[in-house]
């Protein structure tokens, strides 16, 4: 089933927010890191994993979700956080490490926790899969609505947690969906060098659950293909595995020289950038016009800028507040 007009605008809008946010983070990240690139410096220190190119995976799935639904994301979480409705200001402030951030700066960009929209992410490969299964179990035990979605990369599909959690979710028939963002790379290691099968979706058969392969890095296609799986989970039909071919337009993290990419790959990926393609699609379908696209762009950029301003102007917590919140 195709998304409605408003769903398509919602998806496009969130792609815009996410992409612009990544672009701005990219610039701000480099502040204080020139001429010498040292991760420790600048207003946003540490590792930075950008999601440019993967926005369709975020919006195409999250378009089906409500705040009550649970999402666990990875070390590359921004696009998904945006689509799940994480508060932009608090998120940006967290990325800057400010007191007003989601966790007052304790987490950082790999540890964004927003319990108001049931979003979390983490820095260990495949780590979010268990919690997604557990949240789904929690809903089942409490007879409460809500499905859980665990995002992972294709590299994570070779981690033991993948196997264990899919099996457990299936044996217990839980409302959880596993989404693989297949960008073909785990840092510098290509999928074919690390994975015995061409499509991870075939692995669903090991767990007696549907395995859906989505070849198209397009929000509409992802939306349509994932709808059934999510409804199935909502209706007690159990888990599914969804694999989406997508593209990592940036390096693994900022500072990555990307020397491992085959010649021409990057250029090709940029040609296939899903954002302008989707924009054109919506224009062609008369869902947006060039005019209201400009307005949308402007509006979403403003949102991001507001978040950035909020983050920049916020204070750091007192250093000794590091001691707080170790325990509940």
């Amino acid at each position, binding site marked *: 089933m195709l998304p409605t007009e408003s769903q398509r605008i919602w998806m496009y809008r969130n792609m815009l927010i996410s992409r612009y946010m990544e672009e701005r983070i990219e610039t701000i990240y480099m502040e204080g890191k020139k001429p010498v690139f040292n991760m420790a410096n600048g207003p946003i220190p540490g590792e930075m994993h950008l999601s440019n190119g993967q926005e369709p995976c975020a919006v195409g799935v999250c378009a089906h979700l409500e705040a009550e639904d*649970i999402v*666990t994301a990875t070390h590359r979480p921004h696009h998904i956080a945006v689509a799940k409705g994480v508060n932009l200001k608090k998120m940006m402030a967290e990325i800057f490490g400010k007191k007003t*951030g*989601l*966790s*007052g700066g*304790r*987490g950082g960009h790999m*540890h964004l*926790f927003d*319990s108001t929209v*049931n979003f*979390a992410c*983490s820095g*260990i490969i495949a*780590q979010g*899969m*268990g*919690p*997604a*299964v*557990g*949240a*789904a*179990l*929690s*809903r089942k*035990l*409490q007879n409460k609505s809500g499905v*859980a979605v665990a995002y992972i990369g294709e590299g994570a599909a070779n981690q*033991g*947690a993948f*196997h*264990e*959690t899919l*099996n*457990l979710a299936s*044996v*217990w028939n839980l409302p959880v969906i596993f989404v693989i963002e297949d960008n073909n790379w785990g840092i510098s290691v290509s999928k074919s060098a690390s994975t015995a099968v061409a499509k991870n979706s075939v692995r669903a058969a090991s767990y007696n659950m549907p395995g859906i392969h989505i070849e198209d890095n397009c929000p509409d296609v992802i939306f349509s293909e994932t709808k059934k799986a999510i409804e199935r989970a909502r209706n007690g039909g159990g888990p599914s595995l969804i694999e989406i071919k997508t593209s990592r337009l940036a390096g693994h993290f900022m500072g990555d020289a990307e020397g491992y990419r085959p010649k021409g790959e990057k250029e090709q990926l940029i040609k296939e950038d899903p954002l302008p393609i989707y924009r054109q699609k919506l224009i062609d379908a008369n869902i947006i016009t060039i005019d209201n696209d400009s307005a949308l762009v402007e509006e979403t950029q403003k949102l991001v800028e507001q978040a950035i301003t909020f983050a920049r102007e916020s204070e750091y917590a007192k250093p000794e507040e590091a001691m*707080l*919140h*170790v*325990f*509940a």
Partner: protein
Amino acid sequence: MSATKKLTIARAMAESLAQEMRADPKVFVMGEDIAQLGGVFGNTRGLFDEFGGERVRDTPISETAFIGAGVGAAMDGMRPVVELMFVDFFGVCFDAIYNMMAKNIYFSGGNSHVPMVIMASTGAGYSDGGQHSQCLYGTFAHLPGMKVVAPSNAYDAKGLMTAAIRDNSPVIYLFHKGLQGMGWLGNEPAAINQVPEENYVLEIGKAKTAVEGADISIISIGIGVHHALKAALELEKKNISVEVIDLRSLVPLDREHIIASVKKTGRLLVVDEDYHSFGVSGEIIASVTEHDHKILKTPPCRITFPDIPIPFTRPMEQWALPSTEKIINVCVTMMENK
């Protein structure tokens, strides 16, 4: 005060669980062989019959999945009690424990809670070999974000379990196989004691003076407390007055209690079944001496498991384990050391 009855640690754990499950629908239990079987070590006996398979769930042998699931359930408002059958198995699932369960409260800035208990059996002494006999107290206590408790008797076992379940932070609950009162793992009669029928909470982080004494403070936890108590009786005959502190909890560690005792006795002996180096015994000695090394009349001592894998064969294993005899000998030597 409610009526009491004599229970083993295994039964005390199960009783606390049952009472909490009755009182709070959010409490549930999962792990390997904890449903129909009642747990390999008996600590979930009866729960499956009373609460059924939804709330008392046998799992596949997939510790990473079900411990990770515990974290997700806890963050979603449930209170999972998850069994890791032998603490030795932590290696297959420690990421979910130390890097997620223990840190998610912090990473969320306190906005999420992780009310989760992991219970795991510890301990050697019955020739179960090097992958089924470890204590690993130091391993868990070293890493931030988890409370770590280990009862030495049924009364404490029930109160600590209730406290652990009600805690909004993750708690590692380590029970020593030799104290479970399961018979087939031996028996320590002193671990079987009077337990109130009503539920109650023992504050996590408070040590207990198991026996008062004037000459030497023996600090221990779990089964070591019993070795020490037996030694205390023997030493009394030699006119050595030993104070035995049962830590009950390693995180938080009740340093005040330890220091107060050593201040009084001037002598410190740590008894720990965990590996010798970089663990519990070192921390306790350091905690006392960094406070004030001059309160010590003699160098601090420790009786621990040496830094070797735990051997299967009885003579080697028994030789390596802390024991009442070793405690007696060390105490006598400490008193001779002027």
